[in-house]
């Protein structure tokens, strides 16, 4: 046997390298495909998780909205609109009744745009205690606002003082929905 003429090892090496190259290519291709599929799956799973989280949060918010229904109604009630303005007048009338003063609304200004403010001019007449009590209750009404101007003077009957005072008030209402 002539060892020098033996070409088998060369062919074996060549075949080995070829097989290795084919295997390498297959591994590279499979790895690429796995990576691609894995990225798509991960993105989709991330989106699903986000949607599920949002769904859970919305369900929680929905149940919270139901639970806080009475408070939300109170909050809605703290805002006046043209339709509910009469409720505000009724409230002031009831305050006047409680404190024993006479209430009379003089003028109301309702805003037509966000830049304008709602206000009510009214007059109350009664003794000082009653007027002071009326203001104390006015400070606590659910419709937030402020006494913008006031003129408080005694109601005179000729030269005699009657102990009755009149207050002309301009009240600005902050929470007004157009």
């Amino acid at each position, binding site marked *: 046997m002539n060892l020098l003429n033996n070409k088998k090892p060369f062919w074996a090496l060549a075949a080995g390298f070829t097989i290795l190259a084919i295997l390498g290519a297959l591994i590279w291709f499979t790895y690429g495909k796995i990576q691609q599929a894995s990225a798509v799956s991960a993105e989709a799973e991330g989106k699903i998780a986000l949607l599920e989280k949002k769904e859970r949060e919305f369900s929680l918010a929905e149940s919270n909205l139901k639970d806080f229904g009475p408070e939300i109604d109170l909050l809605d009630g703290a*805002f006046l609109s043209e339709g509910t303005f009469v409720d505000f007048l009724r409230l002031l009338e009831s305050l006047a009744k409680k404190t024993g003063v006479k209430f009379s609304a003089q003028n109301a200004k309702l805003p037509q745009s966000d830049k304008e403010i709602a206000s009510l001019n009214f007059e109350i007449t009664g003794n000082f205690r009653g007027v002071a009590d009326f203001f104390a209750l006015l400070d606590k009404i659910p419709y937030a606002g402020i006494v913008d101007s006031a003129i408080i003077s005694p109601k005179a009957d000729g030269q005699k003082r009657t102990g009755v005072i009149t207050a002309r008030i301009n009240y600005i209402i902050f929470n007004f929905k157009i």
Partner: protein
Amino acid sequence: MNLLTPNYEKEFRHEKIIRVWISFLIILIIVAATGLVFMLPSYFALALSKDDILRRLQAEEKVFEKKEFKSLEEKITSLNEKIFTFEKSEKRRHDFAPLLNKIAINTVSGISLTLITLSKNEQGLFTFSVTGETDARDNLLKYIDRLRAVKEFSSINSPVANLLKENKASFSLEIKINPEAYKYESVK
């Protein structure tokens, strides 16, 4: 003891190196093939589950759209805006009754108030203008001192004309209200 002749010794070493190479290649091929075999199930599992996951995503999206979360989102947004406005308005709110009471309860005997006016300047700062009558100058001075001690009032302005008469005099005072106690803040 080496039985090979020197000229075959070189050939024999060459043959040995080739065999080592072939063995190394075989090992590499086995390792690569094993790797490929182990990778294939992952590939098939991912390829098959990918469509399934995408279908699940589509279904979730449809469910999400159907549940009308948009309107709920709008409702929550409007509610939050309302809460924000409400809180802002509550912060702008100031009590008027305590200020009026401070003017009234600090009067001393012999002083009667005839007119109290509340007005505001361009900066939203309020001032009380108080007019009245006093039977004695000292009573007015006492009243002014009492008003100056009220922390809700930042300054009391009493014109000299108030003090010209010793008895039975009319007076007018300008009481500036401390902005922390009462101020109108316009919406920005």
